[in-house]
């Protein structure tokens, strides 16, 4: 699919975002044909919209990549309880900054997508749960909602129909775990964001206020609008089978042009992203490692090779540069595309220090509810901190790995994996650096202060 020329972006979600003549005002959005899809959708039956979304094969953009149409199908419609729609705008995965762009630059796209989704699932109340630090985003969304309400695109009797759906912006309280959908629901209910046990608390059945609830990512909900524009079948042709649509990749770290880039799924490889799109590494540096999907995803070592059989039966033999940027590519390489946050590390990075920072993040963000994550994340932090402070021991690498293994798969929510995977992959791929710390405990002069 890729060729030698620099891959070109295909902007669907961010189509108007960086147009100097475009603002987040409703006038701009309407000028570009905004809310036409809402009108079109309201002429359809709700279940027809669900069917289109299912056909489109669009996968959740929040990190887990679960098909959105399937999620909607699981919704318990028979209970007679009200149904809620929640937009998860708690974007807080380190290395990810895509939803912020959408909210700041094209908020009406999200509102339109949400109102279509609300109509499709027949939700009378929708929420945008936005992370606390996005105060500007919250302000923009609030004024956008006011604009949309004034025009009848949201709120009471949308487009003059009998369907009403109120939309409320709720600012989070400043915790990573609020992005976990059941943690988010708890937080929205006004409690500590302790994720719920599943079973029995699947949001589609027992979500917000114990009512059926759909929680979708910002980018996913925006895609709903575009699915309605071209139809599920056409949308499914964008990208690759099982990896449909575009994705916004957020590239950070040691590249010349970090930023967000929207491409069709699978339209380019990791190498093309780093070297062509982002202008390559800084002068004189070489690639050491890449974290492909936010800090939770497993790290890739620059000289790693991956081989095996893809789902469609074809053999693959990739270096890191060859990994196609979609959902299944990073998965085949033993990691995941997660939230699309690509973190590039060059040879100046001390991997133990990088690990220490990641561990510090997870130790700080663990909600503290369940034992393995609560105690394991802090323990790992203490170990790596000590290693960086000159107290490394030979057995530390094995200990770290063992602690991570004791967390993975044993927690209430996926945070356990998010905390364990980085450690597991760092030890698996950079064990030599951890062992080296024992012999060379001194920190480099250039080292930054640890988190």
């Amino acid at each position, binding site marked *: 699919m890729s060729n030698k020329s620099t891959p070109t972006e295909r902007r669907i979600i961010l189509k108007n975002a960086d147009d100097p003549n475009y603002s987040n005002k409703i006038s701009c959005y309407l000028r570009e044909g905004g809310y036409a899809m809402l009108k079109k959708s309201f002429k359809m039956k709700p279940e027809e919209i669900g069917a289109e979304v299912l056909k489109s094969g669009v996968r959740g953009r929040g990190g887990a990549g679960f098909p959105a149409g399937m999620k909607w199908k699981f919704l318990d419609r028979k209970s007679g309880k009200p149904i809620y729609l929640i937009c998860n705008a708690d974007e807080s995965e380190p290395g990810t900054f895509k939803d912020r762009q959408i909210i700041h630059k094209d908020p009406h796209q999200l509102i339109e997508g949400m109102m279509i989704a609300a109509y499709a699932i027949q939700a009378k109340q929708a929420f945008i749960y936005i992370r606390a630090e996005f105060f500007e985003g919250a302000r923009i969304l609030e004024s956008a909602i006011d604009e949309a309400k004034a025009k009848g695109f949201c709120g009471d009797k949308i487009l003059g129909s009998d369907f009403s759906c109120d939309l409320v912006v709720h600012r989070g309280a400043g915790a990573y775990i609020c992005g976990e959908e059941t943690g988010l629901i708890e937080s929205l209910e006004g409690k*500590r964001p302790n994720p719920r046990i599943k079973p029995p608390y699947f949001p589609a059945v027992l979500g917000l206020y114990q009512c059926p609830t759909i929680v979708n990512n910002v980018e996913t909900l925006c895609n709903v609008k575009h699915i309605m524009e071209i139809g599920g079948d056409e949308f499914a042709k964008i990208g690759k089978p099982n990896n449909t649509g575009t994705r916004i990749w957020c590239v950070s770290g040691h590249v010349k042009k970090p930023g967000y880039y929207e491409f069709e799924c699978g339209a380019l490889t990791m190498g093309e992203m780093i070297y062509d799109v982002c202008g390559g590494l800084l002068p004189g540096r070489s690639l050491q490692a890449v974290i492909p999907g936010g800090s939770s995803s497993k790290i890739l070592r620059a000289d790693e090779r991956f081989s095996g059989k893809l789902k469609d039966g074809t053999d693959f033999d990739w270096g890191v540069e060859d990994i196609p940027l979609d959902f299944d590519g990073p998965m085949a390489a033993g990691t995941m595309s997660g939230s699309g946050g690509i973190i590039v590390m060059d040879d100046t990075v001390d991997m133990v220090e990088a690990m220490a920072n990641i561990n510090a993040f997870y130790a700080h963000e663990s909600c503290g509810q369940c*034992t*393995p994550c*609560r*105690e394991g994340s*802090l323990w790992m932090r*203490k170990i790596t901190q000590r290693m960086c402070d000159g107290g490394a021991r030979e057995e530390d690498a094995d200990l770290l790995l*063992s602690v991570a293994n*004791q967390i993975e798969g*044993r927690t209430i929510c996926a945070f356990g994996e998010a905390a364990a995977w980085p450690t597991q992959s760092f030890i698996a791929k950079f064990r030599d650096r951890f062992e080296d710390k024992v012999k060379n405990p001194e920190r480099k002069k250039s080292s930054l202060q640890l988190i």
Partner: protein
Amino acid sequence: MISKKNSKVVPIVLDGKEVEVPEGMNLVDAAALHGKEIPHYCYHPQLSVAGNCRMCLIEMGTPMRNRETGEAILDDDGSPRIGWVPKPVIGCATNVSPGMHVKTESEKVLGCREGVMEFLLVNHPLDCPICDQAGECRLQEFATDYGRGYSRFVERKNVKPKRTRLGPRVTLDDERCILCSRCIRFCQEVPKDDVLGFVDRGSFSTLTCFPGRELDNNYSLNTVDLCPVGALTSTDFRFKMRVWFLKDADSICPESSAGCNTTVSSREGELYRITPRRNDLVNDSWMPDSGRELYKSVKSNNRILSSRIDQNPCTADEAIIESIRLLEGKKIGIVGSCKSSLEEQFLLNQISLKTNAVNFIRGHFEEDDGILLSADRTPNLRGALISGFTQNYPKDNLVSLSQALDQNQLDVLLVIDEDLEAAQVDIANLEGVPIVFIGTHTNSTSNRASVVLPSLTTFEKSGTFVNRSFYAQVFRQAVPGPAGVLPDLSLLSRLHNGLTEDEEISPDQNSVWKVMNNVSGSVLKEISLTDVRKDAVLLDSSKWSDLPFVESKALHFEPATKVEA
């Protein structure tokens, strides 16, 4: 939430063995039914499921079915193929389903337990030598049973508050807390007093009271019992006694007609604490704080420790002889007590019947808390009905006694424990009426009594109480009574045998029960003491369904609906 009795059973395969368990039961309870322990901290059968300690991780699988046809997929040998869930699941939140396979002893499961145990201990102070929980601590028990036995932790432990006053009766050591949230859920769900919560996050999470509030509800000490570790401690019991020195006796709380099942703990005849004992029909696993204080009455200053005639100390024999002399051949008024055991009330009534005495009894009524402190603040009002001591529902006073005295109907009074003055008996009417008083503590009546016979508290004797739901329950002696003080049954039996020509009644529970069983028309006819000793026995209460019982709806208690006339 609270496990309901369910007669339907489903087959599951527990560690390779096919067993039957009640439908819908969770795996922790189901495995326990078949002698398999699934260790757990946060799970409590009478609280909502939190699933946060992760100690009860097990392997679980269900028979695979063909998606299209719904038929079971079979292995080559014809047995159903099991789809094992790839990750371990928590037993407390997994309910049994037919054909479910469960592994509680696999290598993976043991690994999970080792891991969780290690995590629970990394920031735990391990101060067992100075910890009150030592000896009854789940951390100690499970660390021994399921832990690795060594530590790999070389970092600094977290520091948290060591002695926080959560309320007047509960002291918290946050460092020992394993954040299982049992106490929080208890406060929300049982006394409905939501005052506890966690602050801070991750491993620094700390249990605390909401600002400006304290844990002062009358059930606060249940959090101490619930706490699987030494974090929540009873301010009263703290540092008083090592629990392995304590001798436990099954008892019934005499505080109210709720009849909470309790464990009374003592060492060398000294009482140290009262804790609730689980009974899913009566009190679940709870009891009011106020009931736990009652052991202090045993050593209180106003305890009657010796027999007296005209307020002068004498021997028990002398006092009994004097009592018989005062009572014999007279018109006796007997004031019974709803605090006496069923056996004592029965024996007292035998005396009454054979001496043609007139019975009086008062109720002690206060506000009902709708949980386990009922409006009737005596343990055995229903015993007074069943023993035949009274046919009528007692009033909150003894005005009828006062009237009988006023009309000179009575020559002498035999009073059990009651304070006549406090029960609105006109003192003027008591002039010239000798009183034989049997009781544990002094009051205005014992002070004016001609004969005082000391008796024993609930903790010093055995007997039967009938609670508000008409459950007959036995309590057992926890400590010996004061030297020279005879048990109530002995006193009553000697009075009985001295005052009547009838067959003597031996002063032991068994003998009294045999006589009680023989009373025609008694609800105790088919019930033996052995039955009641085994478990609470529900008595037929239909005879009394028209009485105006004061208790309101509460935990495991529905007021009887009046039969329409």
